[in-house]
């Protein structure tokens, strides 16, 4: 559940940032020390260790390991499917958030709770769940086992909450009167959505899409059963990494891990930058 909780503040991030700027109630040196220590132990040192491992063969060795045919294929597949998954999430996630915020229907609370389920489920369970519906013994006669669509479905399943949960709170706060003002000025529903609502949602959409993408490129459990892990076909980067460990090639595993890290970091950084740009004037 922790990452869902992380997903929520995306929309409120700007307010939080501004608050700390306007009356900087800092926590003092001790707080900063604890935060830094924690980040180091949990995040920075392990990252440094894997980076060091990947560089055992020098920069050229790192590059060769990433550029090995099955490594490259796994990385390209992972990034491509993750990008598609993030995009689909942007569209469908916005739609679901919209329905949950703006529409009243029986069972709304249940649907709302259902959104987090794919996240709460152990990913291996997700894989079994999907396998039972879309696997070789599919009750609806739809066998997607070991195909790219199967990988995409698995990733869509586990990343469902990200966009929904980041857009939902922002949508709740959208100024309905601005929409009504636009209507009275002659704007139709589509124009109102495109020109008035969407610009307010963009930071949350970028944030949600970024988290979904980052989660997707690292996903292992949900893909492992239904994806089949066929090299250069449906094998995603995390499966490739696991396989390299199994056949005792830790440098190669570390190299692909570093590649994933860099991609995830770049995507999150760029999206955050873009979100910051779009919300510059959204104050007051």
């Amino acid at each position, binding site marked *: 559940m922790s990452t869902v909780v992380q997903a929520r503040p995306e929309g409120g991030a700007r307010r939080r940032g501004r608050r700390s700027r306007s009356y900087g109630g800092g926590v003092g040196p001790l707080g900063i020390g604890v935060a830094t220590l924690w980040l180091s132990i949990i995040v920075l040192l392990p990252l440094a260790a894997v980076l060091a491992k990947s560089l055992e063969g020098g920069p050229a060795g790192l590059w060769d390991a990433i550029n090995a045919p099955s490594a490259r294929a796994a990385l390209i597949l992972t990034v491509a499917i993750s990008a598609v998954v993030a995009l689909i999430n942007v569209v469908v996630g916005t739609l679901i958030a919209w329905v949950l915020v703006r529409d009243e229907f029986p069972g709304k609370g249940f649907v709302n709770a259902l959104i987090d389920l794919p996240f709460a489920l152990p990913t291996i369970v997700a894989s079994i769940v999907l396998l039972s519906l879309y696997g070789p013994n599919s009750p609806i006669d739809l066998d997607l086992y070991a195909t790219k669509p199967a990988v995409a479905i698995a990733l869509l399943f586990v990343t469902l909450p990200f966009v929904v949960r980041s857009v939902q709170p922002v949508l709740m706060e959208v100024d309905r009167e601005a929409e009504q*003002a636009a209507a*009275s000025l002659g704007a139709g529903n589509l124009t109102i959505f495109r020109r008035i609502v969407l610009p307010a949602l963009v930071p949350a959409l970028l944030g949600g899409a970024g988290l979904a993408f980052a989660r997707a490129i690292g996903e292992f459990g949900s893909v492992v059963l239904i994806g089949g892990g066929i090299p250069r076909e449906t094998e995603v980067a995390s499966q490739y990494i696991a396989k390299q460990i199994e056949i005792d090639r830790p440098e190669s595993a570390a190299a692909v891990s570093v590649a994933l890290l860099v991609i995830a970091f770049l995507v999150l950084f760029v999206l955050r930058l873009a979100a910051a740009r779009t919300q510059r004037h959204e104050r007051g």
Partner: protein
Amino acid sequence: MISVQGVSKQFGDYVALDDVSLEIRDGSLTALLGPSGSGKSTLLRIIGGLETPDSGRIVIHGDDATNVPPQKREIGFVFQHYAAFKHMTVRDNVAFGLTIRRQPKEKVAERVDELLKIVGLAGYQKRYPSQLSGGQRQRMALARALAVEPRVLLLDEPFGALDAKVRTELREWLRRLHDEVHVTTLLVTHDQEEAMSIADDIAVMDNARIEQVGHPRELYDNPSNPFVMGFLGEVSQLAGRLVRPHDIAIAAESVAGAHEAMVSRVIHLGFEVRVELMLTSGEAVSAQITRTEADELEIGSGDIVWLRAAGNSTLEAI
């Protein structure tokens, strides 16, 4: 002319409007005045097409507009909290209605500049709403509404979110603007002073109904019931009749029909002098006289005086 015909609206069990009818003259500035919850905003939103009435009709300039969506009503709507498009510059805000009508760019720019000049925001084109004061934002919202040349301008407590000084300035400015632009305007307010000072006509609302419609002066002088009388100004009660405090004549000698009273307190408020009195019946009465009158009467606490209702705006107390 805007004609509201027998409009009713309920939200669940709550009756917001109960068979309301009202006619608004072309080119007038009419105020819908009433306490909060009286249904005035609901009526305005129904005229603007932002709510649908349960029954009744809205006729704008002879056309039945009851089922016309807000996009096609040719109305300008101004909200209490500005409803600014926060991610757009002042120029883009004002131009919104024109750009979605795909008007040529130069024409739009020209019109926006002209409007910003009218509302006193010339030179603010490139600012964002967050960089404007509340009063400036509301003037921007007015320019935005006027840009599409609406047949009717609807203002929902437009100065309600502003501080007192800006509010007074803006309402005088709105009156001058209305005299220039002459667009039929309907303004919702709970502030009787605001309504009295700028409206040509006032419709007083209470409890989902319109209590009385008329010129401000007429309503003040001839209120049709105690609610209207009390909402438009101060009221004193003198021997079973409601009367304006300044309509109570105080005499030093007994006159026919006058009530004897003792002065309990004299409060000097500059030009105005407030006199608190006690009738022989024990009933407290508050009167308002000028300083000159107070000086002539040489009035002071403990004096015995005679009171009578001098004006014609008296009502039987319930």
